[in-house]
């Protein structure tokens, strides 16, 4: 007998059997679970949002909701969903990552971003500077980052979605200032990246490099990360400098159609995203240092979110797909900045 063959088959069957146990138990009876796949810095925000939403949903519909959270780099999270992680909702750092759910796996329709108000971004942020207490280098605006005596900390745009916002903010500033052209913008960004001694792979890594290792004079960061750093992590050690012009960072949210339809969770998933636009949702976003879309909530926050000139990706770059292809894909502008120079 080919007992070796039999035992091979048994092993295969056992392993296949193990993976066949998850099922459509999502919306059965009186409780429902949702999975929100998000990026790193939103962990605390969604802990609050989930609790508030679950209270509201149970009061209205008498059904318990428990929302599981998954956090990681934005691109990595999108790939996990593309590769089969059954997210009901994605709340990522950039629309490009959500676009890929359509392009690579047809999980959502192409026009997903038009389904919710404000480009499907219920809260926004912008790119600001964090400097050491008292601003010893006197950094006021983007121009100062090009000075030879200034070391700039920002993560690697090739690996970090957050870093792509930083890069595009600098580019947009240079392009829109008087006399700005695509060439001058490129020169500006190239010089800026010469001032960068270390490219961490993610935004939190850069924050650590700047705050804990003491490297660099200025950290380019999302405003919510900057608040976190100055208010909570390194109290009294850093100041925030808001540049004259910056980019409107719009982290988008979307229901993953294929999954909510399969699991029968569409109604609750859509209500969850709507909740982010509600007054309470907006208040929670502001509490966690994201700029609320609601004027009413924003006006209560007063001076916490200083006014500055903001431009969007669509205005300056024609959307994320174009920005990604022109700047960050292999052979794009960012790569050319680092091409070995003929010496």
């Amino acid at each position, binding site marked *: 007998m080919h007992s070796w063959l039999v035992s091979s088959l048994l092993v295969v069957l056992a392993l296949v059997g193990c993976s066949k146990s998850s099922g459509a138990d999502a919306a059965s009876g009186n409780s429902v679970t949702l999975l929100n796949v998000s990026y790193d810095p939103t962990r605390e925000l969604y802990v609050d949002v989930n609790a508030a939403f679950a209270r509201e949903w149970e009061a209205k519909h008498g059904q318990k909701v428990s929302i599981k959270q998954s956090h990681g780099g934005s691109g990595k999270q999108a790939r996990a969903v593309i590769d089969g992680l059954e997210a009901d909702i994605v709340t990522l750092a950039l629309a490009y990552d959500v676009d890929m759910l359509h392009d690579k796996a047809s999980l959502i329709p192409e026009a997903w971003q038009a389904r919710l108000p404000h480009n499907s971004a219920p809260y926004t942020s912008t790119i600001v500077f964090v400097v050491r207490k008292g601003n010893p280098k006197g950094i006021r605006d983007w121009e100062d980052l090009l000075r030879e005596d200034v070391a700039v900390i920002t993560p690697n745009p090739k690996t970090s979605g957050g870093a792509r916002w930083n890069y595009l903010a600098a580019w947009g500033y240079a392009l829109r200032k008087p006399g700005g052209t695509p060439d001058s913008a490129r020169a500006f960004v190239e010089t800026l990246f010469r001032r960068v001694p270390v490219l961490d*792979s993610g935004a939190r890594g850069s924050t650590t490099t700047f705050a804990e290792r003491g490297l660099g004079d200025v950290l380019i960061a999302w405003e919510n990360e900057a608040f976190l750093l100055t208010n909570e992590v390194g109290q009294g050690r850093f100041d925030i400098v808001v540049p004259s012009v910056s980019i409107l960072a719009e982290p988008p949210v979307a229901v993953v159609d294929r999954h909510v339809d399969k699991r029968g969770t569409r109604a609750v998933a859509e209500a969850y995203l709507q909740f982010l636009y509600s007054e309470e949702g907006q208040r929670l976003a502001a509490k966690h240092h994201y700029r609320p879309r609601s004027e009413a909530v924003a006006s209560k926050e007063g001076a916490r979110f200083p006014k500055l000139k903001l431009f969007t990706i669509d205005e300056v770059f024609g959307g994320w797909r174009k920005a990604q292809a022109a700047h960050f894909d292999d052979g794009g502008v960012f790569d050319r900045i680092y091409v070995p120079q003929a010496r």
Partner: protein
Amino acid sequence: MSTPARRHVLPGFRLSLGFTWAYVGLLVLIPLSSLFLKTFSLTWPQFWETVTAPRALAAYRLSFGASLVAALVNVVFGLLVAWVLVRYRFPGRSLVESLVDLPFALPTAVAGLTLTTLFSSKGWYGQYLEALGLKVAYTSVGIAVALTFIGLPFVVRTVQPVLEGLDADVEEAAATLGATPWQTFTRVLFPAIYPALLSGFTLAFARALGEYGSVVFISGNMPLRTEIVPLLIVTKLEQYDYAGATAIAVVMLVTSFLLLLVVNLLQRWSHRRFEVRPGA
């Protein structure tokens, strides 16, 4: 009824062979061949362009170079550590024993963060080294340091049992026959531990090649200068360039496999030579 031509001492050879094939097949062979399948979506010129891009070449050089340096450092100092642990009894010996394994157990990200904290310009080691003009963190030196750290247990743990098996009598006999300490080492000890040292080297080298977690923190990830191959793979994935990522992965896989094969052959060859020695 069939009777096996040869009887084995332990029964169940066929059963266990079947298990072995299925197990290795499912866990190693099929996952790795899927890597090749993904790469096949590229045309040959696309593949070649991807794997020979200047940044890829710089990354191979760095990954293989730093891994080689780290493995060599571990061969020398790992041997020394193993020797001390086997031949001497001293207070705190069991503490050193367990410390040696720590790089195994530690999440590599913890290792990377710790080493970066120590070696950055404000760190405990870094501030003095930098005063001497040696920058470690965010340079290729830092990468080699991280790779040395994670590779340490391999050499110690492969050489240690062999050293334990060697009787001190042999060295004493060599000494009474008039051998100098150096002769004793090169003629008596080294041939015996050489195969184990070689496997320790291979394991440390192979481990270093694939290391990602600890290196991304200390390397600074500067394109063309401190970008390791695994990071390059991650940057491809960030562009949803699955085929490009697997192309570079395939290059690493094939090179690593060839290296392991060569070292294995080398080891077998040296082992035979050692076995044949009379009176061993």
